[in-house]
C-alpha cells in the first residue's frame, strides 16, 4: 500500500516513507524481471487501462509491460483513433471505461490536473503518467530508484538537474521526491526556463551549468523541447548546446563516479553530447529497465489498496488542483 492511497498523482503528496516503500518493492520487482519466466500472477484479477492523450512511446510501453508482468489484463489507447477525436469529454471517456469494469487507470494528459480530476470521479485507482507541466511521478521514482541502486542512498546526494525546469514535469517530480529523501538538489538552465522563487522548494539555483555540475553525484539532463525555441525561450539549438549542453569537458567537474541520467527522448548533440549519452557514466538505458520495475511496484501497491477495501485518502478536489493548469511557478523576470 502507498499509505491509504487509491491513486498516485504526484510525489508532492507522498511522504518519505511512502516513497521508500515503493522503491523497496521495486527492487523485488526488478528481481522478478530477471527470472526465467519474468511474470507473476499477482494481479490476475485486475484490468488496467492506459489512456494516453499525449504521444508517448517509452512510458506507455513501460506501463503495459509492467501490467503484463503482473498478469493484469490491459487495454490501451492513444488519442488518435479514439473517440476523443470525436469530441467526447474526459469524463465520458472515463465513465465508459469504468463501465467496462476497469480497476486501474494510467493516464497521460496535456492538461495539468487531468489525473486529479479522474481520480475524483472514478472509483478506479488512477496513476499519473505525466500531466502537462505538473508531475510525472513514476519517472521521478525511477530516476530516484536508479540513483539509490547505484549510490546506496539518497540522503546527502548532490543531484544537478539541468535544462528547462519551468516546463518539466520530470524536474518537478524529481525535485519533490529527492528533497523529501534528503538529497541536495541544484538546478541550472536558461533564465527564461527557471521557475521564480524555486528556492522555496529546497533547491539551489546555480548561475551556470558548470557551477551546478561541480561536485555532483548525479547529473539529470532534461530534454529541451524544440517548440520552446519558437516561443523565444532560447535563441538557437547551437547556442543552447554551447551554453547549457553537457559534454565530456563539463562533466569533469562532477565526482569521478557521477551518474548521467536523461528521461528521454534525447536530442543528441543539443542538451547532451554524443559521447556523454553513450559514455561510461551514462545509466540512461538502465533507467528504462528500472522503469518497468518501478511501475510494477506502483501497480502492485495500489492494487493491494483496492483489494483491501480500507477507507482511502480522498484525492485533492478538482478546485484545488486547478492551480496546476498553469506551470506551478511563473517564469523568473
Amino acid at each position, binding site marked *: 500500500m502507498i499509505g491509504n492511497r487509491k491513486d498516485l498523482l504526484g510525489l508532492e503528496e507522498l511522504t518519505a516513507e511512502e516513497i521508500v516503500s515503493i522503491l523497496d518493492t521495486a527492487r*523485488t520487482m526488478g528481481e522478478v524481471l530477471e527470472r526465467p519466466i519474468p511474470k507473476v500472477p499477482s494481479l490476475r484479477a485486475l484490468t488496467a487501462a492506459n489512456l494516453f492523450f499525449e504521444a508517448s512511446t517509452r512510458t506507455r510501453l513501460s506501463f503495459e509491460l509492467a501490467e503484463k508482468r503482473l498478469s493484469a489484463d490491459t487495454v490501451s489507447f492513444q488519442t488518435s483513433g479514439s473517440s476523443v477525436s470525436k469530441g467526447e469529454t474526459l469524463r465520458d471517456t472515463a465513465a465508459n471505461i469504468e463501465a467496462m469494469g476497469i480497476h486501474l487507470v494510467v493516464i497521460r494528459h496535456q492538461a495539468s490536473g487531468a489525473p486529479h480530476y479522474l481520480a475524483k470521479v472514478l472509483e478506479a485507482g488512477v496513476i499519473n503518467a505525466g500531466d502537462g507541466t505538473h508531475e510525472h511521478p513514476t519517472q521521478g521514482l525511477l530516476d530516484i530508484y536508479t540513483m539509490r541502486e547505484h549510490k546506496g542512498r539518497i540522503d546527502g546526494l548532490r543531484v544537478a538537474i539541468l535544462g528547462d525546469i519551468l516546463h518539466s514535469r520530470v524536474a518537478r517530480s524529481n525535485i519533490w521526491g529527492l528533497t523529501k529523501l534528503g538529497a541536495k538538489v541544484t538546478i541550472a538552465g536558461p533564465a527564461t526556463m527557471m521557475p521564480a522563487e524555486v528556492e522555496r522548494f529546497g533547491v539551489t539555483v546555480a548561475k551556470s551549468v558548470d557551477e551546478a555540475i561541480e561536485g555532483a553525484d548525479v547529473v539529470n539532463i532534461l530534454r529541451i523541447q524544440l517548440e520552446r525555441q519558437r516561443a523565444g525561450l532560447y535563441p538557437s539549438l547551437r547556442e543552447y548546446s554551447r551554453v547549457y549542453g553537457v559534454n565530456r569537458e563539463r562533466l569533469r567537474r562532477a565526482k569521478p563516479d557521477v551518474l548521467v541520467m536523461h528521461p528521454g527522448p534525447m536530442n543528441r548533440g543539443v542538451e547532451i553530447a554524443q559521447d556523454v549519452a553513450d559514455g561510461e557514466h551514462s545509466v540512461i538505458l538502465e533507467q528504462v529497465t528500472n522503469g518497468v520495475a518501478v511501475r510494477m511496484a506502483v501497480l502492485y501497491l495500489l492494487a493491494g489498496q483496492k483489494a483491501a477495501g480500507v477507507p482511502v485518502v480522498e484525492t485533492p478536489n478538482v478546485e484545488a488542483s486547478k492551480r496546476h493548469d498553469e506551470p506551478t511557478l511563473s517564469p523568473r523576470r
Partner: protein
Amino acid sequence: MENVREKAEIVDAESLGRAITRISHEIIEKNVGAKELVLVGIRRRGVPLAHRIAAKIQEFEGHAVPVGALDITLYRDDLQTISHQPVVGQTDIPVSIDAKVVVLVDDVLFTGRTVRAALDELIDFGRPRSIQLAVIVDRGHREIPIRADFVGKNVPTSRREVIKVKVTEIDGHDGVSIGELLS
C-alpha cells in the same frame, strides 16, 4: 498476529534441534544421498531452517547443498481479501533447479495454501525432477490436497489456536509455542 495469547511452549530448543537432525537424516535416506538436492526455504522462517538442514546434511554427507529462498507474496491467492497487504520480500534461487530434487522447507504446514503458492512459483524457475516438502510442525486443517514428506512434529490443533515456530536467527531463540487467537 498481535491478538494472540501464548499458552505453552510445546517444543524446546533442544527438541527442535533434534527434529531438524532427524529431518536431515530422512532427506538423505529418501534420496539416497545429497548430490541432486537443492533446499528452498519459504520466507521468512523456512529460510533459516533450510540453512540449518543444509548444515546438517553437509555434516553427515560432506556435501554442500545449495540453499535458496522463496517469497510467495506475488503468488498468493488472497491478495483480494486480506486486510493488510504483505510486504514483498526477495526470492533468491541461486542455482538451476532443472532435473534437481528440490526440498521445500517451511515452519508450519496448515491450510496448504502457502505450499500451493510456493509450488507455482518454484515451477516458474525450472523443471525439477521432484519436489518434496519438509516442515517443522504439521498442525492439520488442510484446505487443499497437500502433504509433507518430512515432518518434525504433528500437533493436533483447533482452528482458533496459533502455532509459532521460533528460530534464533529471527526470534532470538529456538522453540515451538502454541497460543490462542483472542477476539
